[in-house]
């Protein structure tokens, strides 16, 4: 059963990857990366049980906590970029 679930997760990862490769916009790719992240957390949890080593859940927890920081960094990046562009527009015009 774990196997079935992990295969479902793997296929979803592949689908997300396809989305990441197709784009078309940057945001679609970011969305795919984010999906990929949560799927990795799930996959790691499932594999930990599949292997019979539930003490490795730490890893999934680490991902769940850290992945989020990357996404927020992206938001911050876009925010400061839009501010910068606005400033540039003022400079230019």
């Amino acid at each position, binding site marked *: 059963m774990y196997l079935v679930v992990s295969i479902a997760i793997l296929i979803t990862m592949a689908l997300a*990857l396809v989305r990441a490769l197709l784009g078309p916009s940057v945001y679609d790719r970011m969305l795919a990366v984010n999906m990929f992240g949560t799927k990795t957390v799930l996959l790691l949890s499932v594999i930990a049980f599949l292997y019979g080593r539930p003490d490795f859940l730490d890893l999934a927890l680490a991902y769940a906590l850290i992945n989020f*920081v990357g996404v927020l960094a992206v938001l*911050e990046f876009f925010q*400061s*970029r839009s501010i910068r562009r606005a400033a540039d527009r003022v400079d230019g015009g």
Partner: protein
Amino acid sequence: MVILFAVFLLTLLALTAVAIVRTENLFVAVMLTGIFSLLMAANFFVLDAADVALTEAAVGAGISTVLFLGALALTAEHERSVVSGRWLSMGIVVVTTLILIYATFDKPRLGDPRAPVHQHVAPWYLDQTPELIGIPNVVTAVLGSFRGYDTLGEVFVVVTACIGVLFILGVRRGGYSPSPDGDRLTTAGSGLRHHLIPKVVGRLLIPFIVLFGLYVLFHGEYGPGGGFQAGAIIATGIILYALLDGEAQALKAVPRPVLMGMVVGGATLYGAVGVAGIALGGSFLDYSVLADDPVKGQQLGILIIEVGVGLAVCGSLLSIFHAFAARGRH
């Protein structure tokens, strides 16, 4: 079964790598690097390398994305597509790939227990660790004690990078003069203060991220984890705060002298344990002389050096982050 997992993940990995190289949008490339790192970590996990997967998680998901974005914000987002000598490069690459694949055919197949790698040194570690060091995580035992000198080197690699980034980005001279429109851009450094949802949720998570980092630090002897992963996770937690409330605010919470103290203190702590080995009549990095019982001494030594590694890594990564962020404020 494991093999099928690995094959699937690896195929995705190769596809991602090709996509990263092909895209001309650097931002997209960085996003895909995130996927690459996730796949890498999943692969490590499937191949029984829990510690390495945790490290990849701590580094790949947080720190390296943040660093890349920091650098992209300061440089450019698109590459201009001038590729010089594409065919020559392609030729070199294809030939080398073929050589490598040629060399694989007599390699032991994945997981072959009779492979020479599993014969000589490795079984000794697995046999002797419970007896000589008395902790369950053999990776930590090898990392901290048997090959503790490598780990000392590793810490100093990070410290060197930290010194280097501070040196290179700290220089004020040069052809570049920061534009005087500082106050118009003040909001650029202020983080996500105006976004309610990330701010509240992120702030709620920070103490737990840091606690988790400390947990990873102190349980490195029992489960996957250790000083480096812990340092990276804690640094990520504080970077999260910097993203939320602005870099200046983060520097107020954890000021620069503290960071420098962590770097220097951590590295020195590790070195001091080594020197203590000499002082107490052993050799450099010999922990067994630290306590009456050699096994206890080893455990104590590993604990202390892990703390040293954690401090140094956390301080270094944060200093590096701040060096990039401070550059952005000009």
